[in-house]
């Protein structure tokens, strides 16, 4: 039976069903209700787990390193500045191959000070060796939680994961969701029994010094594990669908792509809006389709080549900017296709920065601009979308 709950509550309940042993969080700015709901579960005896309130996000992830190395299933959640403060620790976690799972609530990075949604925070961490999967809606973010524990903890993978979900748009809205059944989750996600664990009877060192004769091989193994994760994500996604009856595609999903001439590529909550826009445009005879990227790391290069092989023009829509060169997804996509037979022009739009809405109107505008490439060629390969020119005028003081 579906229930209408706040996104944060849905996620907290999904985490509860995964039975983590240790949760460590910094409960304030920037944070969401996810961790508060979890603290209630622990206080009410609904979740048997060590819950640590720490003094910073740096400490929350650091304390999970210890807990995970000692054999615990571990979870945390943060957003924007909190993720930025964790940056050093992110690499530590992935380098030590600790399968920590984190809900990364996507929000803009300061300055200017902002509390609203975009995906700059997680994008800035794309090199950190964490699996990153972006959810379209609350249900998907909930369902991804046990899936990512299962993938991360797989002995062939041992790589930490982020469930990325858009701040406010998903965390603070009320949506009808189907709660996970804890018994079914237990069947789907076996208890965490790590092979490499801190054990006085069998001493080990985690995070040891690797001189130049070793370091490269550690990175190589991480890279290989991330490559293997592609198949694992697909497999676990199918297993989940068999047990719970909800599927979302694998590394990517497609919508109205069969005869699409204009293809949009995007990720996160804007996918839902883009589907509406695609439906509208299709009803008007515009041959437009949509590719939803679920897994951004590992990057679904092969799947994208298949999905986009017949498109005549491709546009990325993403909520981040790599100041100095385009946006992350656009550059990755172009890189993925360069050595392939796909020659459709690719253009990119950085949109929805710092919480500016991307509605159907905006997506129609992007499709219009992208379609123009077919007649006029590429005018701008990359655009920061929806810039209010009047704000840039000298002496502008309006709102």
């Amino acid at each position, binding site marked *: 039976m579906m229930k209408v709950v706040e996104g944060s509550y849905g996620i907290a309940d999904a985490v509860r069903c995964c039975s983590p042993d240790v949760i460590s969080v910094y409960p304030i700015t920037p944070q969401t209700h996810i961790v*508060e709901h979890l603290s209630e579960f*622990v206080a009410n005896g609904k979740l048997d787990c060590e819950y640590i309130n720490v003094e910073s996000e740096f400490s929350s992830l650091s304390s999970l390193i210890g807990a995970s190395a000692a054999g615990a299933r571990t979870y945390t959640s943060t957003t924007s500045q909190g993720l930025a403060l964790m940056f050093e620790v992110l690499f530590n976690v992935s380098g030590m191959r600790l399968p920590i799972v984190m809900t990364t609530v996507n929000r803009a990075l300061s300055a200017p000070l902002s509390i609203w949604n975009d995906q700059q925070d997680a994008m800035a961490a794309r090199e950190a060796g964490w699996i990153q999967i972006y959810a379209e809606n609350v249900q998907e973010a909930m369902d991804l939680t046990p899936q990512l524990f299962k993938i991360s903890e797989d002995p062939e993978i041992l790589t930490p994961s982020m469930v990325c979900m858009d701040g406010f748009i998903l965390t603070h809205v009320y949506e009808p969701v189907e709660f996970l059944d804890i018994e079914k989750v237990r069947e789907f996600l076996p208890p965490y029994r790590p092979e490499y664990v801190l054990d006085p009877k069998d001493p080990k060192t985690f995070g040891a010094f690797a001189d130049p004769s070793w370091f490269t091989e550690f990175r190589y193994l991480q890279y290989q594990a991330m490559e293997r994760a592609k198949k694992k994500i697909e497999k676990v996604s199918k297993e989940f669908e068999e047990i719970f009856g909800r599927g979302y595609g694998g590394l990517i999903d497609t919508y109205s792509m069969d005869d699409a001439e204009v293809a949009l590529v995007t990720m996160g909550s804007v996918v839902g809006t883009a589907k509406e826009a695609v439906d509208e445009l299709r009803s008007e005879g515009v041959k437009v389709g949509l590719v939803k990227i679920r897994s951004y790391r590992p990057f679904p290069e092969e799947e994208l080549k298949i999905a986009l092989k017949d498109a005549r023009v491709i546009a990325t829509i993403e909520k981040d900017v790599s100041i100095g060169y385009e946006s992350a997804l656009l550059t990755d996509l172009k890189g993925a296709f360069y050595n392939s037979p796909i020659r459709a022009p690719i253009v990119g739009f950085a949109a929805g920065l710092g919480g500016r809405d991307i509605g159907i109107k905006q997506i129609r505008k992007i499709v219009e601009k992208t379609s123009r490439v077919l007649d006029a060629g590429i005018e701008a390969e990359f655009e920061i979308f929806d810039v209010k020119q009047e704000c840039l005028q000298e002496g502008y003081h309006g709102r």
Partner: protein
Amino acid sequence: MRPKDLATEAANTWCPGCGNFAILNAIKPVLAVLDEEGLVAIETVVLVSGIGCHAKIADYVNANSFYTIHGRTIPVATGIKLANPDLNVICFAGDGDAYAEGLDHLIFAAKRNVDITAIIHDNRVYGLTTGQYTPTSPSGFKGRSTPSGLEVPPINPLEMVSASGGTFIARGYSHGIDLLKEIFRSAILHRGFSFVDVLQVCATFFNLYDHYNQRVYALEGHDPLDRVRAEEKMREWDYDSDGPIPLGVFYKKDAPTFGDNFEEQNPRKIDIEDAINKTLERYI
């Protein structure tokens, strides 16, 4: 200059009864008077705030100001002061800023004795995020992230700053504005790191007005130069017990400040070429 000249047009969004009003209403007259007296020109004042309800004070005082990210008021203030020692830098930070996420900065500012003033809006709760515990929340505190009650005791920030080498240590309270003004004035005029922990009541999420009103008293006949006695007074209340809560300037000491001897250490003042040649001569 009158305090109202320091007002701004920004709409105030603090809750009714918020202790931040007392800090705002104390700092404005203090700055106005210091400017009138020619001791601190308002143009040289820089207010540095952190993240939380308190930080909006930067919007409400018509002076130079700087919003920093969470926890980083003190290092930003330190940088401002070192780059331009003519400026008078006042930090406004919350207890989350100063005692949790940015605690290391507080310790090092006290250790360096950098000539800035740190005013901590210590409401002992995360107010902007609606009621989580902070490092100074009392044991047993039931907040949004500690529904079954906080298990760990609070820290005593005064003792901590004293142990770190702070040269001006005071406690104020958001009820009783005259004492607060007196403390702020001395703190700003003190040469060195001035630390003021203000018991600033969050009327919405942790209303301690009654609790404090029954327990606070102003230090009288206390010699702030007597460190032993000062530390005894700091320990009189540990932010957890029910004991009396002393207010005022606990400790004050004149000491060299960070940056005082930069001129002497300036490498431009040493003839580097000459120094290198002298060293090389030893090997030739």
